[in-house]
């Protein structure tokens, strides 16, 4: 395993692209349409970081997650994990890479096998990845995993159906931890749960991250949650990253008009939060279909600041403040609003 990678960057994506061809043929006409799910995104994650990848449905955030975990292989671009190329599906990756990158899904009801006991579910990755040293008892290790996610040891005899939604998600976390990964992709892990359960799970995941020095890619649509969890935040819109910045700068000076629109739409519970919401830009329009991305800047159908340039030229990523990148021709205008 090569342990040399630049700037401590554990995962690097360069011009990452994923297109899906869709057959729209009819009796009389052959026609293939291309869905540009992810259309050239660049980002990098430092070791121990938590990057929040935020976007609406159809923005390509889950596709990005699936490429990293090896469920899809990219159509183009570069994807490197610890300096090794991972732009291929998981079956073609080496064993240590599969072990190192784990994923937690949105719905634990369907990501855990209903016919297996919790014990079986946790044993499987331990056996597949030879995680049991000689003389160590597998039962001991399963109990240890359950303890790490604060579940009682007796739960190993139960089946997923007898657990609550939150407890099931904790089992999914324990399963991900079983292989001693260094990188976990979290695909909306709490969006199916109630807030009181979400609070518990997120706090636990943050403790686990510190304890095992993990790197998280946190995919979500919940910006308020990211405010409390992520170190950096990336906003995706129609397969491209619109804005990427350290969390504190991001919330202090959101620069992309789409970010402003997202922030103004979030329902909040306190007066202090209401004061933070941008008042000038309100939500309008809908995200266009990814089969039919508008020319120029893809946000031009909804943008309140759009000008002629936006319909002809696709903006490029610009570093407007230190480490704060925005893909908008008129990001400076947002500041003067």
């Amino acid at each position: 395993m090569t342990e040399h990678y630049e700037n401590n960057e554990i995962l690097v994506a360069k011009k990452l692209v994923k297109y899906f061809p869709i057959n729209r043929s009819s009796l009389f006409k052959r026609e293939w349409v291309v869905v540009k799910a992810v259309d050239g995104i660049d980002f990098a994650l430092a070791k121990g970081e938590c990057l929040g990848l935020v976007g609406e449905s159809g923005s390509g955030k889950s596709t990005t997650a699936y490429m990293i975990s090896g469920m899809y292989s990219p159509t183009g671009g570069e994807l490197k994990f610890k300096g090794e190329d991972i732009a291929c599906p998981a079956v073609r990756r080496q064993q240590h890479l599969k072990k190192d990158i784990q994923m937690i899904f949105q719905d634990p009801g369907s990501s855990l096998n209903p016919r297996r006991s919790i014990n079986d579910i946790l044993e499987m990755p331990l056996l597949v990845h030879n995680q049991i040293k000689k003389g160590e008892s597998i039962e001991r290790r399963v109990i240890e995993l359950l303890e790490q996610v604060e579940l009682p040891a007796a739960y190993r005899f139960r089946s997923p159906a007898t657990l609550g939604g939150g407890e099931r998600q904790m089992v999914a976390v324990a399963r991900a931890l079983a292989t001693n990964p260094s990188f976990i992709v979290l695909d909306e892990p709490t969006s199916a749960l109630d807030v009181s359960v979400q609070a518990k799970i997120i706090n636990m995941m943050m403790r686990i991250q510190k304890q095992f020095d993990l790197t998280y890619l946190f995919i979500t649509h919940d910006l308020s949650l990211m405010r409390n969890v992520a170190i950096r935040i990336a906003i995706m819109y129609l397969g491209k990253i619109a804005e990427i910045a350290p969390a504190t700068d991001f919330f202090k000076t959101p620069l992309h008009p789409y970010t402003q629109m997202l922030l103004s739409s979030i329902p909040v519970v306190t007066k202090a939060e209401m004061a933070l919401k941008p008042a000038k830009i309100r939500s309008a329009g809908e995200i266009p279909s990814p089969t039919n991305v508008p020319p120029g800047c893809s946000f031009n159908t909804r943008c309140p600041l759009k000008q002629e340039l936006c319909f002809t030229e696709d903006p490029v990523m610009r570093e407007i403040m230190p480490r704060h990148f925005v893909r908008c021709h008129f990001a400076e205008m947002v500041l003067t609003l």
Partner: protein
Amino acid sequence: MKDALLDIRNLHVEYKVYGGLLKVLNGVNFRVGFGEKVGLVGETGCGKTTAMKAVLRILPQLARIPKGEILVHGKDVLKLNAEDLSELRGAGLSMIFQDPTSALNPVFTIGQQLFDVIRYSTKEKVTDKREVALKALREARLPDAERMLDSYPVQLSGGMRQRACIAFAIATARDLLIADEPTTNLDVTIQDQVLRLIRDLVEQKGTSLILITHSLGLARETTDRVYVMYAGNMIEMASTEEVFEQPLHPYTRGLLASVPRLTGGGFAEGIPGRIPEYKQPPPGCRFHPRCQHRFEPCSKEMPPFFDMGNGHQVACYLYQNEQEGGQSD
């Protein structure tokens, strides 16, 4: 609050299932005034939807209502015959459901479905059905209403489908609109647009609104008054401002502390434990096994609403001695 449009009194609902009886609603009291926007907040499985389905009498067949009254305009809905009931549903109350995809019929166009809704809600003969349907869609501020009328539900996006459902509901709702988690399946920017639409429409028409939601933020931004529900009981009721600035019930406080804030700074550890089994709910206050402040009386009897002034009511024995002027219902 003397005049109430909807007055639910001591409502109990049970579900008969294999191996027992689920005692879901346990004496719910709930009132909505004329033109009022009321939020009904609670976590999954707390009985919010059951309570509202009981109002429209669309509970599943397994449900029994052993006790309680549901008064709409002073008439008990539970005692209405089929004819009066359909008149009430057609002309006064309507509901927007969580999932617009399953609320719409996939084999009819929006126009055909909308016209059916309108036809059964008025007694007058409708002559130009297309015109009436168009008017209803325009009223719900749908762009491109002409095209929408001839579209099938699959041809529309999730947000558009929900807007169509709102058009259906608002076309007939004269008195009360019940919105059951209307934006759960939508993205936040669309959620914002849909809620603004609902809010504007009810304000414009003077319709009362009940917003059922698990999102505290939505309740804060949309409603005048909020009921908090836990495991089949109303546990707190106050003006929206009061509930969010000075929550009293330990559950409400725990819930609010768990909400991630846009201002950052982390959030609480959540509430330990989980919602009780309805087959054998804990005696007394149903929250007491999870409550950090529980003491003797909590496990004996369900606390009544204590009036804390300003119309703020809370069902918790912690406030028994602080209440203002005697018990209320």
